[in-house]
Each structure stands twice: as C-alpha cells, then as structure tokens.
C-alpha cells in the first residue's frame, strides 16, 4: 500500500508503505525484534524492500542470539573449539572485534553470558514480562581478547564458556548491508536514486539523497513517530525536546540509549548496555548517545562506547573527530564535532544546552 502524506510506520509485522515526501517512499515493518524503516528515493521501492528483507533474514539466521538454530548459538555451544563460520558471521565477528579494539574493550562481543545473567536471555518482549522465578547474578566478562578469528579461513576460536553477543555492532552491520543491498536493487548508482535503511535507529544511507538530505528525528526510542508534532512517548527525550531534526547526505547515524530495553528484576532495573568491566548494566552520565560516521557499524560502535566510557566519552569522541550528540541523565545535551545546534547552521564548536530549551542564549561551553 502506498499512500500520501504520512511517514509513520507500522509496528506490526506487516509492511506498511507510505509516500513520505514528494520524492520518497517510506516502508516500515518489524524484523530482528526491532523496527525497520526503508526510505527509497527512487521510482520503484519494491526491489529495495525485497533486498532488505533478504539481508535481514540472512542476518537473523547468522547471528540472532535468540534463535536456537542460528549460527552464532551453535558456535557459542562449541566454545573452546575451532568453529568454521559463514562469511556473514565471520564479517560480523570481525566487525565486533574491530570495534572492541578501537574502543579498548568498551564495546565487547563477549558479553553474552553477562547479558543472560542479568536477565536478557530471550526476545525482549519475554524479558520485559518474565513468567518464571527471578534469578540475577553477575558474570565476569572474559574480554574480546579471548576470541581469535581467522578471516581468510573463516574460523573462530573462543575460550570455553565464552558467549558472543554481536548486539550493537551486529545491528549496525545489518543496517550497512541492508542499505548496500537496497541501493544495488534500485540500480546501484546515485543517478538511479538513494536509499535510507533504519534498523532500530541505526541508520545507513546510500546514493542520491532527497533535497536537503535525509532528515532524521532525534529521539531515544527509534519507534518514535517521525511526525514531529505528534506521537512522542512520555518520559523520552523526544518529549522534552520535540522536533530536533538533523539531515545527513552520506554515511550513517546511530544512537545508543539506556532508556529503552529496560527491565525489572525485583527492585532492580536493568538495561541492555553491559559494562564489560562489571558485567552489569552500565551506569553512565549519558542516557543517550548519537553519532554520525561513515558506516552504521562505526556510528553504533562510537555511540555505545560513549555510553560505556561515561565522562571519558567527550575527549574520546573529540579524538575520533566524530560528530556526536550526548544527552545526560538530567537532560543536558552536549554536541560535539560539528553536530549542529537546533535552528542554526552546522558549526564546529562544542556546546551544551539544556534539553527542551535549545535557545542559543542558554548555551555554555563544555570543558
């Protein structure tokens, strides 16, 4: 179904297509336990949609932690032995190890057991509403150096009992692969149009953007409707600061947040970003971090690392030279690396403003 006037997506599993602007078609559906949005700046979106669906099915089979028949679950069962993996899983593990190396372990793929130990051991809908008894324990994270990968032989060896979880980098990689496949499906050249793929808020774009670029609504929940005037969820940053929209023309934008995928066990609240130093949900001064980079993998890596690094995120992001937007637990917003202030052209200065009051006269220098 292609209709006029709305870019909002369906939250059901049924794809919904809408004519988002005069030149783009937006299709939303759910896959991999998260929301998928495909925006196509081309005449016919159907080949791109089919390509994205195919990529996500491959990803699901390769590294979904919640499918008993997925390749990564089988590999985790064989921890301690050399396992030959598919090219896709090999690439995903390589991306995760690269992320771990570039963040000095802040983003670590060996948090699988720790994640299960704090209760994230099933699809999130089941985690949020557990039926069984409450049992929580903390597991020491073995660390990414306990994983060895031969990229050319596609062999992986982990220490016994190590469980890989490619959550953050895996989602970013899936967005990159899906965007590449969609772009190829519409002809593979900018003259044929462009595509945007959002996978749970990890956004990758390729090809010719619409006039003014691909517009992204900044939120903490990627399911926030893109109509800026309606539909934000109570308690989210989008409610406090509705309508902050940025545009990108190339690359990717990803957000990590501690405000979603939260669950309760007894009196404790957990979320899905594990601190590799403790094995527990990370305690961070930032509740949300958004980063723009050349790929969704790198953007997600940097965003997740920023949450884990806490106050160290600001110098780390500066050193990386990546545009970033950090939202503190109290709602203050820090913009780095040329991330633009609302209602102002892009500027390289770093500044901090209060969420909900992005007036320029309230900016203060961040030191």
């Amino acid at each position, binding site marked *: 179904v292609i209709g006029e006037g709305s870019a909002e997506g369906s939250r059901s599993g049924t794809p919904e297509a809408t004519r988002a602007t005069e030149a783009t078609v937006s299709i939303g559906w759910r896959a991999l336990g998260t929301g998928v949005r495909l925006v196509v700046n081309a005449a016919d979106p159907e080949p791109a949609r089919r390509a994205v669906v195919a990529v996500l099915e491959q990803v699901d089979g390769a590294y979904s932690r919640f499918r008993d028949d997925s390749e990564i679950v089988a590999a985790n069962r064989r921890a301690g032995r050399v396992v030959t993996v598919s090219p896709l899983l090999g690439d995903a593990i390589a991306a995760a190890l690269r992320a771990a190396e570039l963040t000095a372990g802040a983003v670590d793929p060996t948090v699988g057991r720790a994640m299960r130990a704090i209760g994230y051991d099933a699809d999130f809908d089941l985690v949020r509403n557990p039926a069984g008894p409450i049992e929580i324990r903390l597991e020491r994270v073995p660390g990414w150096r*306990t994983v060895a990968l031969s990229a*050319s032989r596609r062999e992986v060896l982990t220490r016994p009992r190590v469980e890989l979880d490619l959550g953050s980098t895996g989602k970013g990689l899936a967005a990159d692969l899906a965007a590449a496949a969609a772009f190829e499906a519409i002809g593979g050249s900018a003259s044929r149009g462009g595509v945007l793929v959002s996978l749970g808020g990890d956004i990758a774009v390729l090809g010719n953007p619409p006039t003014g670029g691909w517009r992204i609504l900044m939120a903490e929940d990627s399911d926030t409707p893109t109509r800026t005037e309606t539909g934000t969820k109570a308690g989210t940053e989008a409610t406090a600061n509705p309508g902050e929209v940025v545009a990108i023309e190339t690359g990717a934008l990803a957000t990590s947040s501690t405000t979603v995928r939260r669950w309760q066990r007894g009196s404790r609240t957990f979320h899905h970003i594990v601190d590799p130093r403790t094995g527990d949900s990370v305690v961070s001064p930032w509740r949300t971090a958004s980063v723009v980079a*050349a790929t969704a993998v790198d953007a997600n890596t940097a965003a997740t690392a920023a949450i884990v690094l806490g106050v160290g995120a600001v110098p*780390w992001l500066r050193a990386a030279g990546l545009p970033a937007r950090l939202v503190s637990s109290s709602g203050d917003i820090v913009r780095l690396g040329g991330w633009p202030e609302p209602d102002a*052209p892009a500027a390289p200065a770093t500044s901090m403003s209060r969420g909900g009051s992005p007036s320029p006269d309230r900016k203060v220098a961040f030191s």
Partner: protein
Amino acid sequence: MKTQARRSPADRDNAVARLRAISIGTTVVSLAAVGGFGAVAAASYDGSAPEVMTAAVVTTDATTDSTSAAATAAPTLQRTSAPTTATGKGHASTGSS
C-alpha cells in the same frame, strides 16, 4: 686365554661391501623420505602466507580493565560529514530500540 682368530682379507672386503650397501640404502631411503615429505607439504599448502588468527590472542587474564585506556587510544573509526540542521518531518527516527 683365548684370542679371536684373525679375519682374512676376503672377510674384510665383504664387511666393507656390506657397509657400503647399508650406506647406499640408507641414503636412498632418506632421499625418498625427504622427497615424499616435500610432496605432501606442497600438496597441503595453498601458497598463502601463514596467518595468525586475528584480533585476539587467547590469554589467561581478562582484558576488561583496559576500558579506561580508551580515552588515550587512537580511534580510527571512519568519519563522514557532520549533520546539518533540518526542519520538517523526519524520514526516519534515530534512537535505541
């Protein structure tokens, strides 16, 4: 005291001949073994350089305490242009999920 009988020159020649035969046989067998080993090695080697499995050496100590060093690491995450301010309806929302 009994003494061993002296060997004849013919006995000595025979012994030398046996030694020579043993030496030649050993040499032939050794060469065959080296050649066979080389053939097996050549057949089982794909010509690429030996590769160490990437990323991570299996170590006995946990590495997770190194996170604090991240601030001093030299990140090489790939950059792109900074975003610009935009108005109107977004094509998509970013945020965790």
